[in-house]
């Protein structure tokens, strides 16, 4: 019984340590707009299962594909909601993203891995032009998420002439990487909807019921999307990503 108690205590301590380490992030990940080089891409992927180098290489290749998408992509699709007295119901959503995949090979040959951060939960890789992307000490340092206050952009979009901004959020999933990736994708879609969206609504009202069917279609070309910043609300367990594109 004493042995079991000790084992439980050891497991608890190890879990707490892992959780503590997992809340540490490099500054270049959280403040991507501070990077001195363009283009650049930060890719978050699962922690390496065996070889750290393989995980970093895979993240680099996937990051180049992501950068190809952010450089020039056509997004089209839509989603529909149906409102009744019982509430608002999602009737489904469908989006397609079309981009030039040959840019992936171009970025793989022109960009280099500038920095990598690996811990138990994730692999984060920064890729950019090696000659221009020299990180200062501050950007290279790690910071604990609990020391960072909530940035203003989480609830209020920045206003800068000539740019559209979008904030994406995600709840916490089992794999932290999924949360970051989903938040980034949601920021991307928010930019698409801000750039241009067509809204069609049909309202029906009778003596006994009322219904509202509204549909939103998106068909836009996005160019040079930049990820600006990231933040995690540790208390509510919400992940936030800020992105922007030129108007």
């Amino acid at each position, binding site marked *: 019984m004493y042995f079991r108690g000790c084992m439980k205590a050891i497991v608890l301590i190890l879990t707490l340590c892992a959780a503590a380490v997992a809340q540490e992030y490099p500054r270049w990940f959280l403040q991507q707009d501070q990077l001195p080089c363009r283009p650049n891409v930060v890719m978050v992927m699962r922690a390496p299962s065996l070889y750290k180098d393989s995980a970093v290489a895979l993240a680099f290749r996937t990051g180049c594909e992501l950068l190809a998408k952010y450089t020039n992509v056509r997004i089209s699709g839509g*989603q529909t*909601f149906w409102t009744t007295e019982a509430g608002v119901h999602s009737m489904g959503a469908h989006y397609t993203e079309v981009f030039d995949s040959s840019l992936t090979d171009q970025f793989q040959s022109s960009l280099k891995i500038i920095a990598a951060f690996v811990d138990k939960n994730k692999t984060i890789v920064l890729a950019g032009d090696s000659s221009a992307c020299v990180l200062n000490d501050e950007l290279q340092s790690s910071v604990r998420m609990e020391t960072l206050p909530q940035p203003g952009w989480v*609830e209020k*979009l920045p206003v800068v002439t000539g740019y559209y901004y979008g904030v994406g959020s*995600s709840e916490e999933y089992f794999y932290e990487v999924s949360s970051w990736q989903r938040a980034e994708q949601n920021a991307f879609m928010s930019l698409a909807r801000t750039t241009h969206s*067509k*809204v069609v609504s049909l309202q029906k009202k009778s003596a006994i019921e009322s219904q509202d069917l509204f549909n939103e279609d998106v068909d836009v070309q996005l160019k040079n999307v930049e990820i600006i910043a990231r933040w995690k609300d540790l208390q*509510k367990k*919400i992940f936030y990503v800020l992105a922007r594109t030129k108007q």
Partner: protein
Amino acid sequence: MQILKSLFATALVAVLLVGCGGGSEPLQKTDTGDVPDWYVSPPSDPNYLYAVNTSTSKDMQIAVDKATQAARTELGRQVEVKVNALQKRFTEETGIADDAQLLDQFTQASKTVVSTSLSGSKEKQKKILKDGNNWRAYVLVEYPLGAAQEALREQIKKNEQLYTKFRASQTYKELDDEVQKYEQSKKGE
């Protein structure tokens, strides 16, 4: 022994009363937090249209999408009201109501503007909270009125007959002034 039994029974009853007393806490735990001030009192600006909405869902992003899309739909309705009012002023001032073809062309132009004019509408503010087992999203969406007016002016310009009929009217001059102010504000922001 009897005293101990009595004490134990009293303590048990006290625990049951405190535990099952109900109190003011609801059965389902909520963490709604404060409703944002901007949701209760949306901002007001003559150059912008604003719409707010709140929605819940077990999936956070669906809650945000529902609220945002509903707010954008409300913006579309506000734009339609503005454009319909403008249409009425044009028809009264220029008398195109007697010309069925011109009226139809102008109506088409107005409809096009209403369905495609949401370019630049943005989620100005957003707040996400946990509400029991669901996520609740509050959203404030903003849309520059000048963008809709600019789109309507461009639609009118595409039709030579309409443009010839309207450009001398006072309503068109006012529309043109508003659009120029909007274009200046875009440059000078």
